[in-house]
C-alpha cells in the first residue's frame, strides 16, 4: 500500500461528532446534554424524532435556541444559554431535577471528557488534584445517575496525546459509568473486555486508529 494511504481519512469536526451521536438517539428517549460539544447534538436530532431534552436547572422538554430578540430572560439551560420549550414541557425545582437524574430516569446523558478509560471511568472536571477552584456542576450526578453515559470528545488532545486511555490520570468524575464514546475518529463501546470499535471514519483502518490510542482497542 502506498504511504499516502495513511492520510486518506478526514477526522470529523465538532459538528460531525455531534451529528454522529445524534444519529444513534432513538425516538422517545429522555436525554441530558452536557455543556459544550454535547449541546450541539440537539441540533442534529431530526425535528420529527421526539427526543425530550432535560436540563439540570429543572427544565424538561427543551426546544432549540430562540430567534435573536425573542429570548425569554427567565428560561435558560444548564449552560446558562437562552432556550425555548416544546409543547408538553415542564419545570421542576433543583432537588426534583436531580431526583430525575439520580433516580435513573434519564435514558441518556452525553458529556464531554478529558479522558475516558477502558473500565468506563470518566475524567472531565479537573486537570489536577489541586486545581485552583475546580468546578464540578452536575457532571458527577449525571455520570453516576443516568441509565447510559456517552462521551463526545476529540480522540486526542491538541498536542496529540490520546484521550482514550487504559486508566485515567486526571481526577475522576465517575467510575465505571461510560457506555460509549464518540470521537472525531471512531465510535467505541465500553464492554467488560475493554474498548470495542463499532465505527471508524471512512478510510481509517484499525491499526492506524490503535496507533493513535493509548488504550488497547478490540475489533467488533
Amino acid at each position: 500500500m502506498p504511504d499516502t494511504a495513511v492520510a486518506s481519512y478526514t477526522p470529523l469536526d465538532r459538528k460531525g461528532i455531534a451529528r454522529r451521536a445524534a444519529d444513534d438517539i432513538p425516538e422517545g428517549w429522555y436525554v441530558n446534554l452536557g455543556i459544550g460539544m454535547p449541546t450541539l447534538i440537539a441540533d442534529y436530532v431530526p425535528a420529527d424524532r421526539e427526543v425530550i431534552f432535560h436540563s439540570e436547572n429543572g427544565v424538561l422538554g427543551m426546544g432549540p435556541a430562540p430567534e435573536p430578540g425573542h429570548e425569554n430572560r427567565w428560561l435558560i439551560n444548564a449552560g446558562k444559554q437562552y432556550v425555548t420549550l416544546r409543547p408538553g414541557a415542564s419545570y421542576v425545582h433543583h432537588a426534583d431535577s436531580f431526583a430525575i437524574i439520580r433516580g435513573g430516569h434519564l435514558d441518556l446523558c452525553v458529556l464531554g471528557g478529558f479522558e475516558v478509560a477502558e473500565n468506563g471511568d470518566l475524567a472531565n472536571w479537573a486537570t489536577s488534584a489541586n486545581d485552583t477552584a475546580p468546578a464540578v456542576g452536575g457532571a458527577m450526578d449525571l455520570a453516576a445517575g443516568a441509565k447510559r453515559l456517552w462521551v463526545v470528545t476529540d480522540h486526542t488532545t491538541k498536542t496529540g496525546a490520546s484521550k482514550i486511555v487504559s486508566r485515567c490520570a486526571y481526577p475522576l468524575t465517575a467510575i465505571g459509568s461510560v457506555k460509549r464514546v464518540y470521537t472525531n475518529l471512531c465510535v467505541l463501546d465500553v464492554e467488560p473486555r475493554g474498548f470495542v470499535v463499532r465505527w471508524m471514519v471512512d478510510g481509517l483502518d484499525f491499526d492506524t486508529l490503535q496507533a493513535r490510542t493509548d488504550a488497547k482497542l478490540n475489533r467488533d
Partner: protein
Amino acid sequence: MAEAMDGIADGATVLIGGFGAVGQPNALIDGLIEQGAKDLTIVLNNAGSGRVGVSRLMELRRVRRIVCSFPRSSDSTVFEELYKAGLIELELVPQGTLAERIRAAGAGIPAFYTATSVGTLLGQGKEERRFGERNYVMEHALPGDVALVEAWQADRWGNLTFRDSGRNFNPVMATAARLTIVQTQHVVELGDIPPEQVMTPGIHVDRVLHVPYGDPPLF
C-alpha cells in the same frame, strides 16, 4: 429592607436561590450587604460574578466560606482572587448532592446515601456503604440559618410561585432555613394563586418583600 434583613447574625449560614442570573434574589443580597453580617457561610450554585451581589459581599470580606457546585464562571474574578490568596474557604459539592442536602435539611433527614462522587476526590473521606450492587457515599443535610429566595408571586400567607427556570434552587432553599426571606415580583391576594399552583406553601416563608424589578438582565 432593614426590617426584612433583621436578625441575620455574624457567622450565619445563608442559602441563596438562583441559577446564573435567573431567580437570584438580588435585592435581598444587596440588603445583606447593607445589613452588615460577617463571617458568613454562603450556599449557592455559583460563586458570584462581576463586582456586585455575592461578589461584592466577598470583596468586602464578609464571607468566610462558600458552598457551591460551580465556582468558576466567566466573570468570577473576585472569588478566584480570594481563593488563590487563601482568604475564602470553598466546599465544592456536586450540584445534585447540593440540592439534595438542602432538601434533606428541609425534610428533617439528617443524612442520605448517593452514588454521586463515589471513587472521586469529592467522595474521599466520606462514609461509604454498599447497597445491592453498588457503593454509595453518605452526605449530610445542609440547613441554613437564613434563606434568600426570589419568587414571581407571593400572597399574605407566603404562598409562592416561581417563573420559568427561575424556580431552580428557590423552593428547596425556602424549606431548609430557620428564617426564609422572599423578594417577589408580584404581591397577590390570598386565593389568587390556585391551590394546585402554589409551588412553595406559606408555611416555609417568614418574610416577603415586594421587589418588582422586571426581567433579569440579558447576558
